[in-house]
């Protein structure tokens, strides 16, 4: 056991090197907890782009203070790490805000910490409904699964679709999507004729698609997290000639995430989805956003719904600090965040004064090829949609 002393010494030295950054009063420190590496690295990359773009447009300042962003990588869902990062950001880096948060378990895990420390937290993606109720210091600028799933059911009923088959990934958000969709669908007289839950690590969808084909439903609604699952499902759908068999396909916007859409290819053509943001959204503000985005980061990456929520997250922080006059104390900031309304590139958004959750327009879009590239073209919308899971309570 003789040999460990030098190691410890070296480690102690390494810890010393990590150090704490020098502090100046004129900086606003914001901690971003997200996935910068691993299978979900696109989420962190998009967050980063949205944040940087906002800061660039505002001279790197919020409420007159220079902004310092401190990034922490969870590499996917990792609640232990997320909680530790939140604690370190608060205690060691003395951040005034915590934001980012792509995965729901990560957001849930840090709720007790931000409550204890009274640090306002702005969720940029995590979409499990109860996150905003898990702490009075959490507000959300993204969406909830229920918020985008239920409008699809309503819209289907409007089109005269009465029967559908539900396919979701077998995890918490999949269950949420299933429940919200089925409730809204049944309320309008629709009927879910069957359902199936697919494992998260599922390389091949042929068995499930064949099962649906043999069940011959009128239509199918599916929810998968953005990433490799939707393209694999859509490929199997195409190959099996489901369209020719007359089965209509609907989904939430995760299926046609702008980051993955081009690689999904023609298999996505004609798919109708519901979501809160498409980079092809037609508004002046969005056109400027997309143009600035391309000018800053090049054309290799499209702004996805992660980039827009990150951009809006920064705007929300700025808006709240404007109301408080630069005061960053937790209670004042949260009071200012609640009820905050502003025009985002995705359309008008509002942070619900009662719940701290987002109220926004949910769009119905169709995947089309426009000018050579695949995009989600919005053609119908539901205004001022609140989180249905909270409205029900």
């Amino acid at each position, binding site marked *: 056991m003789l040999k460990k002393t030098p190691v410890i010494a070296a480690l102690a030295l390494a810890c010393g090197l990590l150090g704490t950054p020098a502090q100046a009063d004129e900086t606003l420190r914001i901690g971003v907890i997200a996935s910068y590496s691993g299978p979900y690295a*696109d989420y962190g990359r998009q967050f980063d782009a949205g944040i940087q773009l906002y800061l660039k447009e505002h001279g790197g300042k919020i409420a007159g203070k220079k902004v310092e962003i401190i990034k922490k990588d969870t590499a996917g869902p990792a609640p232990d790490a997320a909680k530790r990062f939140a604690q370190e950001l608060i205690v060691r880096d003395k951040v005034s805000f915590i934001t980012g948060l792509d995965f729901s378990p990560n957001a849930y895990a840090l709720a007790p910490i931000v409550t204890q420390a009274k640090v306002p937290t702005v969720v940029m993606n995590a979409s499990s409904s109860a996150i905003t109720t898990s702490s009075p210091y959490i507000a959300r600028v993204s969406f909830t699964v229920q918020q985008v799933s239920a409008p699809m059911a309503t819209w289907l009923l409007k089109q005269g679709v009465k029967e559908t088959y539900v396919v979701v990934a077998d995890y918490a958000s999949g269950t949420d999507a299933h429940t919200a969709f089925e409730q809204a669908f049944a309320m309008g007289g629709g009927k879910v004729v069957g359902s199936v*839950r697919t494992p998260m690590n599922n390389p091949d969808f042929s*068995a499930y698609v064949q099962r649906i084909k043999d069940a011959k439903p009128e239509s199918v609604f599916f929810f998968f997290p953005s*990433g490799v699952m939707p393209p694999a499902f859509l*490929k199997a759908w195409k190959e099996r000639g489901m369209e020719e068999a007359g089965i209509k396909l609907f989904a939430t916007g995760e299926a046609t995430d702008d980051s993955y859409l*081009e*690689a999904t290819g023609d298999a996505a053509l004609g798919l109708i989805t519901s979501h809160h943001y498409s980079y092809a959204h037609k508004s002046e503000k969005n056109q400027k956003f997309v143009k600035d985005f391309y000018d800053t980061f090049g054309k290799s990456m499209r702004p996805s719904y992660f980039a827009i929520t990150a951009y809006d997250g920064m705007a929300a922080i700025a808006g709240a600090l404007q109301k408080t006059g630069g005061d960053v104390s937790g209670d004042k900031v949260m009071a200012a965040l609640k009820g905050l309304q502003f025009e985002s590139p995705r359309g008008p958004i509002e942070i619900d004064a009662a719940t701290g959750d987002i109220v926004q327009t949910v769009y119905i879009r169709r995947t089309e090829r426009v000018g050579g590239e695949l995009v989600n073209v919005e053609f119908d919308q539901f205004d001022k949609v609140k989180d249905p899971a909270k409205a029900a309570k």
Partner: protein
Amino acid sequence: MGIVIFDGIAYGMLLFLIAVGLSVTMGLMSFVNLAHGAFAMIGGYAAVTAMNQFGLGFFPALVASFVAAALVGGVLEFTLYRRLYRAHPLDQVLLSIGLVFVSVAVFTYFFGPTIQAFSPPESLTGSMSLMGLEVGRYRLFLIVCGFAILAGLLLVLNRTRYGAMVRAAVDNQRVARGTGIHVQRLFFLTFAFGCGLAGLGGALSLGILGLEPSFALKYLIFFLIVVCVGGAGTIIGPFVAALLVGIVDVAGKYYLPELGAFLIYVFMVITLLVRPNGLIPRKGL
């Protein structure tokens, strides 16, 4: 029923095509090579780059995928793997996991974290009629490839001088060296060949799986299952295991969707409890 079996076979062949290289490096050469998925990933990216950047067709791209993965495999064998053939398996685990980490970061850096676009050639899209079944063309192609590779490998290992030398070297390195076989060069070639096979499998998987940098780790369990259930170090073993795993998985998901996620692991555990050395333990190749 028929179509479910067909899809199962096709899925099994997909697993076989990627895992057979692992049976060569891990089974034959007994190197616990957890970086196998990384070599498959190299093949996949090579094929995608050849098609999307250089406008090559799918079939030339397959050749490119084999060559690229074999080259990288050869270089790494020469620089790293060679030194660890006789090391403890756990050291081999550490090395190959290190390589996986590096490969994930490198591919994220150069290709981005999202999936790669891939469209199979016209002749392999859609479905066709075969003995009264509407079967996917790409899946049929995978099955054909699987049988072709199986036949080719059996031929090479059992009927050629190279194959005889490999078998000799694997069974007893010392004696093989004594008979004048250049074992080091032989292992170099075999390792590169195994990596090439992984690359080819990776490219062939493009039609079903999405290719992104975490490919190297994501499907590793499935490859290990195929090799271990089959019996490491054989070619027939993984082939049979892949067929069974594919059919069990697809049929399970079709008939018992509630248990879809469990079946393949239950199948593996039970098989290994009944036959601890795999379905076809190594004796004759």
